[in-house]
C-alpha cells in the first residue's frame, strides 16, 4: 500500500490558490468588465485584447515574462522588498499574481457579456427611480448579471486548479508552498508512482464534472425574481 499522506498538501494548496485567485479576480475583473461593457472609448477593444491574451499565449511565454517581472530586478522584486523578501517568484503570492493574469479572461469575458446583454435601459429606469449609479450597479446590474458572475467565478476557479505551465515557470515545485495538484501529478508520473497519479487525476476528473454540472443546475435556478 503506497503512502497517501503526500497527496493532501498539494490538494489543499491548490484549493487555497484557486479560492484566493477567484476572489481577487472578482474584485479586479468586475470593474474591468464593467468598463469594457459600458465605455464608448475606441481603444477599449485593445484593452480587451490584452485581457484575452492568455487564451492564445503559450503558458510558458506568460510564465517567462511573469518570472522576469517577479524576479529581484522586476517590479515584483521591489514589491517583495517591502516585506523583506528578494523576489515574488517561487512564492505562494507569486502564484496568485500569475494565476490572476492567467485566468483573467475566463472571469472578465462572461461578466462583460452579462453586463452588455441587458443594455442601458434597466440602468436608465433605475436612474429615473432615484437610484444613484453606485446604487443601480448593486441593485440592478449585479443581480441581472448574476449568471455571468457565477460562470466567471466557476471558470476562473476551475481554470486556476488546472494551471500547469505558468506554475512551473514561476512557482517551481516547492512542497507546501508552490507544489500544486497538476505539478504533483506530473511528479508522480515521472517517478512512476502510478497509484497516486491515478487517485489525483481521477479526483480531478470527478471535480471537473461536478463543477460544470452544478454550475448548469444553479444557472437554471437563478432566474427567480426577488420581492
Amino acid at each position: 500500500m503506497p503512502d497517501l499522506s503526500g497527496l493532501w498538501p498539494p490538494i489543499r494548496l491548490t484549493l487555497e490558490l484557486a479560492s484566493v485567485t477567484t476572489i481577487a479576480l472578482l474584485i479586479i475583473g468586475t470593474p474591468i468588465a464593467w468598463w469594457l461593457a459600458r465605455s464608448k472609448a475606441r481603444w477599449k477593444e485593445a484593452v480587451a485584447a490584452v485581457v484575452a491574451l492568455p487564451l492564445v499565449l503559450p503558458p510558458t511565454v506568460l510564465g517567462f515574462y511573469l518570472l522576469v517581472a517577479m524576479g529581484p530586478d522586476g517590479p515584483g522584486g521591489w514589491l517583495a522588498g517591502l516585506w523583506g523578501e528578494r523576489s515574488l517568484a517561487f512564492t505562494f503570492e507569486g502564484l496568485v499574481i500569475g494565476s490572476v493574469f492567467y485566468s483573467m479572461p475566463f472571469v472578465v469575458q462572461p461578466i462583460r457579456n452579462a453586463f452588455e446583454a441587458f443594455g442601458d435601459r434597466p440602468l436608465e429606469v433605475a436612474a429615473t427611480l432615484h437610484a444613484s449609479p453606485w446604487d443601480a450597479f448593486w441593485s440592478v446590474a449585479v443581480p441581472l448579471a448574476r449568471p455571468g458572475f457565477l460562470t466567471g467565478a466557476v471558470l476562473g476557479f476551475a481554470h486556476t486548479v488546472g494551471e500547469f505551465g505558468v506554475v512551473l515557470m514561476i512557482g517551481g515545485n516547492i512542497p507546501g508552498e508552490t507544489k500544486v495538484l497538476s505539478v504533483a501529478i506530473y511528479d508522480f508520473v515521472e517517478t512512476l508512482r502510478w497509484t497516486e497519479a491515478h487517485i489525483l487525476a481521477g479526483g480531478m476528473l470527478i471535480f471537473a464534472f461536478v463543477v460544470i454540472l452544478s454550475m448548469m443546475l444553479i444557472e437554471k435556478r437563478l432566474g427567480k425574481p426577488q420581492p
Partner: protein
Amino acid sequence: MTDDADVIDAAFAGRIGGFDLNVDFQAPLSGVTALFGASGCGKTTILRCIAGLHRMPGRLSVGGRAWQDDVAGTFRPAHKRRVGYVFQEPSLFPHLTVRGNLTYGAKRAPRDGNGMPPVDFDQVVDLLGIRGLLDRAPVKLSGGERQRVAVGRALLSEPRLLLMDEPLSALDRSTKEEILSYFEALHQELKIPILYVSHDIAEVTRLADRMVVLSRGGKVADGPVGEVLERLDLQPMTGRFEAGVMLTATVAGQDRDFSLTRLDHHGQTLTIPAIDAPDGTTLRLRVRARDVSLAIQPPTGISIRNVLAGEVVEIREEPDTAFAETLIDIGGGRLRARVTRQAVAELELAPGRPVYALIKSITFDRRSLG
C-alpha cells in the same frame, strides 16, 4: 402660466441623428400636456433631456428649480430629478417581483416631499388594478399588465412630474383601450402633471389638456388641445386621416329603445350610440374632419342623426387635390369638415355662409369618447 413655480420651462438645441433639434416651450405643472408629432421628430429626445437621461445644450426648469442651465453650469443628474418615466416598453426589472418593482423607486424617493400629498401604495395598486399581481414575476404578466405596473412604479417614486413616452404604442388595440381608462382614473385621482409623448392624435385628444406640436425637431404650435386641433394650417402635422376637432358636450338623456344617448352641445343636440353615463356628465368627443359633411339647407329624409347649424369660419383649399378643409362654428364649438373643392364651389361656401354640419352617429365610437 405666469408663476414660475407652476411651469416647466424647457429649451433644447442640438443635433440628433440626421436633423437639428431646436425647441423652446412652456407647459403648466398641472394636467396632461402632450408632445405630439410624427415618429422621429425629436419628441422622445426632448423627454429624455427632461429626465436627464440625455444631455443636449439648453435650459430646463421645473417648478422654478433649474435642472439644467448651461450658463450657470447646472446639470442635475437623472437620479436627482423628481420625475417618473414610463418607457415605451414597460422595462420592469426581471430580477424583482411586481412588488419589488413597485417599491424600488418608493424606497429611494427623496424624503423632503414634493409639494404634493404622498402617493399611497394601496391607492395606486387599486387604481391600476394590480393587487392580484403583486407576488408575480414580470415575465408572467401580459403586456398591458406590465405597462400598468411600470406606471405604478413611476408614480410610487413620488415624482413631481410624470413623463410618458408613447406608453401605449407597444400594445394591441383592446389593451390600449383598457389602459387609457386607467390613465384617466389616475389623472382624476392623483392630480400629477404629465408630459405625454405620442404620435396618435386620438390618444392626445382623449387624454391631454394642452399640446405641443413638433415637426422635424422644431415646435410648430402649442396651446389647449381644442384650439390646436381647430387650426387648419397644422393639417400636415395632425394628419389627414385622423385630423379633427374636440367637442365638449354633456349627457342630456338616454333613448333606451334605440340604444342611443342624447348629448347637449351649447343648445344643439347630438345623438350617439348609447353610453353608460348619468345625465350631466361631461364628455369629450373627437370628430374627424372626414366624418363631417356640409349642407346649405337642413336636409330631410336622411339617415344621419346629427345635424348642427353653424357658419363657415375658414376654408383652406388644397391645390392639386380634390379636397378642401373647412372650419365651421357651431355656436360654442367648432367642427372641421373635409369636403371636395367641387362642393365648395357648387355650394358657394365662403366665410360667413350659414351651413348645416352632418355627422353620422356611428362616428362616435368608444375610442373617440373621453
